[in-house]
């Protein structure tokens, strides 16, 4: 997401997604130029350019103050694509779907103004345990999709947030929605865009692409699991005992067991809603990669597996001993694990993502597909501007060194943005041959000089955790000073 900064909206993260609640109240507030002007008397005491350098687009937020989008996280969920894991490469449709998923342009006015896209909540197709929007969330990691803010027409007048689910393995997890109300993923996505976020009717090709993209997101591999969802040989004794308990019939209703709904051989789901004493009928959630999908239950009421196991013990009167509970938790931890669940953002990963998005033009320009060209230019433009802001300019006092490298990186990125927009301008005029030529110019800079310049500047960029922290600490101090 881009760094279009909004007053009171935090996009910062620490380096671990697991301690989400601990830092949920660390709100690094960003401001906008409007606010800076209002506070000019105070801010003039600070280096002027710095005071105004954070609000990249100067837009006042449309989100409530105190919103946490966690978009500054350096440590992000790793995204594994089925097509790449199988040794191939992502198709045009997957890249287009990923692009649309990351674009606020497909959503309605408020989301668009706030720079929110599908990927804001589903970071790299996973979840966002720190997401918090006042009046729409009751805790980090949940969100009311039927609130007033994003679409007044969808407002049900009840604060009923649901947890933000991971989309990993979605192709195995129909029906969709927490209550499993929608059989079709395509229909579900359409509902999110049009009804929940007040977006315009999406072109069918875009919907198809988004379905293709989501269906290509794999579960991350878990070495603890063998064939049929059984524990592999290296599992601990506790986990093995837990596996037995998991399959054991409930004492007061032998027709039930944990494994009866969370079917190990079927991605730990049964595709059916159940009432497990949480306030209604809710679809069985998968347990694969679930160590990283907290909080748990449809509304995200539980932070830990201990709490989840205690809930079932209480509601179904399972009579678990302390060791039983520990064993079940050990089992859940084992089957919910994943290989390399997170990865650090950096120049390489950002350029890979932008390159994948821009590759859509390889097909869209020869096809004279003006809508897709426009969406691609719009989305890649914002991604490039975001990337530019990862290299603070010379007026940022929290970053010393590498001034020339940073200036060169920013300059190249700004040039690339203009090249990109020339593609959009000539394509919108129907001059597709010229668009193809401009696209070649764009690609030549993207794959040639740009990576060299960005890698050279990376040590002094916000991708460096030390500089990242110094930068946002300075910003926080500045805004605290301004707010006094």
């Amino acid at each position: 997401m881009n760094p279009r900064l909004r007053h009171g909206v935090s996009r910062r993260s620490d380096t671990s997604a697991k301690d989400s609640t601990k830092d949920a109240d660390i709100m690094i507030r960003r401001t906008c130029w409007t606010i800076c002007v209002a506070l000019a008397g105070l801010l003039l005491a600070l280096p002027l350019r710095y005071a105004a350098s954070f609000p990249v687009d100067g837009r006042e937020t449309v989100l409530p103050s105190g919103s946490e989008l966690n978009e500054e996280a350096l440590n992000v969920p790793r995204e594994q694509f089925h097509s790449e894991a199988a040794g191939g490469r992502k198709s045009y449709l997957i890249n287009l779907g990923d692009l649309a998923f990351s674009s606020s342009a497909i959503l309605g006015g408020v989301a668009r103004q706030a720079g929110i896209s599908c990927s804001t909540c589903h970071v790299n197709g996973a979840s966002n345990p720190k997401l918090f929007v006042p009046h729409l969330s009751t805790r980090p990691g949940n969100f009311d999709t039927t609130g007033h803010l994003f679409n007044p027409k969808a407002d049900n007048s009840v604060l009923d947030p649901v947890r933000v689910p991971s989309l990993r393995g979605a192709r195995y997890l129909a029906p969709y929605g927490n209550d499993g109300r929608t059989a079709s993923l395509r229909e579900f996505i359409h509902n999110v865009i049009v009804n929940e976020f007040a977006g315009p009717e999406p072109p069918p090709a875009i919907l198809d692409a988004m379905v293709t993209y989501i269906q290509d997101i794999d579960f991350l591999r878990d070495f603890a699991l063998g064939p049929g969802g059984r524990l592999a040989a290296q599992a601990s004794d506790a986990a093995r005992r837990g596996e037995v308990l998991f399959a054991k019939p409930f004492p007061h209703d032998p027709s039930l067991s944990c494994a009866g709904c969370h079917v190990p051989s079927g991605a730990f789901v049964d595709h059916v809603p159940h009432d497990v004493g949480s306030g209604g009928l809710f679809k069985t959630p998968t347990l694969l990669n679930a160590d990283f999908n907290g909080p748990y239950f449809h509304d995200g009421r539980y932070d830990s597996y201990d709490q989840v196991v205690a809930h079932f013990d209480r509601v179904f009167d399972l009579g678990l001993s302390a060791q039983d509970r520990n064993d079940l938790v050990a089992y859940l931890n084992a089957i919910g694990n994943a290989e390399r669940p997170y990865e650090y953002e950096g120049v390489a990963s950002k350029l890979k993502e932008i390159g994948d998005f821009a590759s859509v033009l390889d097909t869209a320009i020869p096809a004279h597909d003006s809508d897709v060209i426009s969406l691609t230019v719009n989305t890649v433009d914002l991604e490039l501007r975001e990337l530019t802001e990862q290299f603070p300019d010379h007026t940022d006092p929290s970053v010393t060194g590498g001034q020339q490298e940073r200036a060169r990186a920013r300059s190249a990125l700004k040039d690339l943005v203009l090249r990109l927009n020339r593609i959009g301008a000539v394509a919108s005029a129907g001059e597709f041959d010229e668009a193809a030529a401009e696209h070649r110019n764009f690609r030549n800079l993207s794959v040639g000089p740009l990576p060299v310049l960005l890698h050279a500047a990376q040590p002094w960029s916000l991708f460096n955790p030390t500089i990242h922290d110094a930068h946002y600490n300075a910003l926080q101090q500045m805004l605290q000073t301004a707010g006094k």
Partner: protein
Amino acid sequence: MINDIDQALAGARELRDRIVAHDIAGAQKAWIAARVGWERSEVFTSGFVPQLDDAIDAWPDATKGFHGIEAKLFGANSFDVQDQIGALIQNLANLDQQIRTIQLTAQGLLNGVTRLAYEVGDGKVDGGESRFSGTSLDDMRNNVEGIELAYRIVFASTLEASDPKLAGTVQGEIDRLKQLLTVEDLKQLDPDALRKASEDLVVTLQIAGPKIGLSTPTLEEATK
């Protein structure tokens, strides 16, 4: 262009006289007057005489030139600017001489126009160049006036002959910039819209370059 530089030089000399007379209000007025001609001429200075441009008009955090004087004159009501004014007058006089003899090229001017169009939306939009004097909006208006003047005199007729639709787009985007800058003060300025309008104009000028027999203008100076 010569008239603009002459105006800036005359304003700087008036500024020196007002400082000597310890007339702070008169000095501030003279500083503002000197800026008008200067900002209109930036389409030329940034492309053809970058060293002088830097010495005269570096910002932000400048200690010399117009903005070094501005910080003391408007920020602190200080008269301690005589050395800086002396240097400014010398640089403007030097520029005044150079502009009469320098070989102007169409490519250089197109580069200057494009860079200035970019600067209006990029560097100047987020608070303005002349913060202490409160004349940032005037700076931008004068920049756009200079852009329009250079475009109309040097490029418009050629572009209209080769691609009338594109020529119309250029003029429309200049008009859009002017319209966005009609607000009463900086707080009312829509920075997103201005940035977009500025970049739209840059992109159109870059597309126009090859259509009038020139190269695509670069932003090398503007994006430093």
